[in-house]
């Protein structure tokens, strides 16, 4: 086990039919750092994220987390291990309220299984739920969404839904956040806020791997960068090292 890396990816290959989308990808995801995955369209960035989250079928290779290969675990199992992803398109629970969206992700509330519900009294989960509501309201207030707690998530604007999804992901208390284009469709004024939030999460020791279309938007945040093209990793290293290899980055990020 390596304390420096939260994930170690070895020879990961993902194919849809004959079409090889990820080819023998090996890389380390550093712990408590923000890592950006960049590259042109079709580079395999999103597929890499899907493979790590468990929603792409892995042909071969290993994904090591806490010394265990998780490449064949179901998405919910990875999520329970602390590997939490967000989606490229906001994936809220439309006809649940904003507050309920967050409560769902809070694993300290009991009463969410059939057996518990019919064998334990309501007071076994109500206090836990009250505490979770308190936490959720604090989190919503940070983003000015506290007045919206009783709105259906499906009625929020695109940017608000993206924030809600991020807050929901954080509510699960993850070790590693996998973010798929967290800034897509978000107003410039809110990008700043989300950026600050991500930095604060890193300070709390949460590792972040995010797919970004353009390096410019995330440059300020990132500690490490992975450049991908045509299903392969071209460069992996610190932001500073990436800048020294400007020609590599330019050639493939510009696309």
């Amino acid at each position: 086990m390596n304390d420096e890396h939260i994930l170690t990816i070895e020879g990961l290959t993902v194919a849809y039919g004959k079409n090889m989308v990820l080819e023998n990808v090996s890389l380390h995801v550093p712990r408590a750092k923000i890592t950006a995955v960049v590259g042109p369209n079709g580079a395999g960035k999103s597929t890499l994220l899907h493979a790590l989250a468990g929603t792409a079928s892995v042909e071969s290779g290993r994904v090591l987390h806490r010394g265990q290969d998780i490449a064949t675990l179901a998405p919910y199992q990875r999520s329970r291990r602390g590997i939490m992803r967000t989606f490229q398109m906001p994936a809220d629970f439309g006809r649940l309220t904003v507050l309920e969206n967050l409560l769902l992700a809070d694993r300290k509330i009991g009463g969410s299984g059939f057996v518990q519900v019919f064998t334990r009294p309501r007071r076994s989960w109500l206090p836990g739920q009250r505490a979770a509501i308190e936490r959720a309201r604090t989190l919503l207030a940070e983003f000015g969404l506290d007045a919206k707690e009783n709105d259906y998530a499906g009625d929020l604007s695109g940017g608000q839904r993206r924030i809600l999804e991020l807050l929901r992901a954080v509510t699960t208390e993850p070790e590693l956040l996998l973010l798929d284009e967290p800034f897509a469709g978000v107003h410039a004024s809110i990008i700043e806020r989300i950026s600050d939030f991500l930095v604060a999460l890193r300070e709390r020791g949460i590792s972040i791997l995010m797919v970004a279309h353009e390096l410019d938007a995330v440059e300020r945040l990132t500690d490490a960068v992975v450049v991908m093209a045509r299903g392969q990793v071209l460069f992996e290293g610190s932001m500073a090292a990436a800048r020294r290899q400007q020609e590599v980055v330019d050639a493939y990020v510009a696309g």
Partner: protein
Amino acid sequence: MSADLSFYLVTLLVYATVAVIGCWGLDVQYSDTGLLNLSYIVSVAVGGYVVALLSLGPPEDETGTVVQEYFWGAELPFPLPFVGAVLAGMLISLPIGLVALRRLRSDYQAVAMLSVALIASALVVAVPGLLGGGHGLYLIPAPLKEELGLKSAEYSWFYAGFAILLTVLAAWVVVRISRSPLWRVLRAVRENPEAADAIGVNVTAVRLAAFAVGNGLGALSGAVLASFIGTYAPADWSYQETLILMGAVIVGGAGNRFGVMMGALLLPVGLAEATRYLPQFGAPGTVDALQFVVVGLVIIGFLWLRPQGVFPERKRTFDVDGRPVPFWGKQGATP
């Protein structure tokens, strides 16, 4: 009260409990969890047949003469036939659910479920030795009738009371679900199974459990009906019956327990009673067939004009101290 009127009222009451319990089971599956279970009536049938098999005793009498055809039977004391019926309804969910619910796509589920319903009724009719074929089972003993020694009229009121008691029990089950954190989990699976999976919900397990609980209630409603009328046959559980129950859920208000109860009283019970008073016209069976036409039109009308039903699913809100706001309280400040 005349005997006729008394019997009519009891019948109406028992039919109402059967419809309400049945619709609540479907409500847990369809409204809460988003399972389009077009084979729901099969779970009702399982309840009807199992309560019959567990109270009829073996198919042969003491002399070895076959009284009626079915594959197996036992004579268990009350209330075991009912318990067995509910358990059987839940157990049958496992094989059906494992086949139909593992995929995420709901159109796939719906087709698989409909096939199950068609296969089940074709099988029962084609193999008379199994469950009495098209004629079904008959002479199903009325529970506790001999033990109580009541006259028919008095007994029928006792049975109505028993049916109401079971409805209260079913109400406790469904309201318990909708007042617990579990309700959020079910609706999350309904709204977005991929996202539920991503936040750590074992979607297949949740679907199977909701499927089993719903089917258990379906089986209970079938058992109440079969024990009351004393016969049970494929005509009682044709696949269109699922449509009527589904219609009741949609009209009453999917996800609203009270609304679904009202829908159950209106469609399967109320409409059947209303058509009873229509003058018979046309070929025999025309009026019965019209019932399905009316139900179909009502469903389409509601899906078109008021898809949330008369009593829509209630928004769950919490007060400043984080306590759930009850249904009689004011909902949250924002609409």
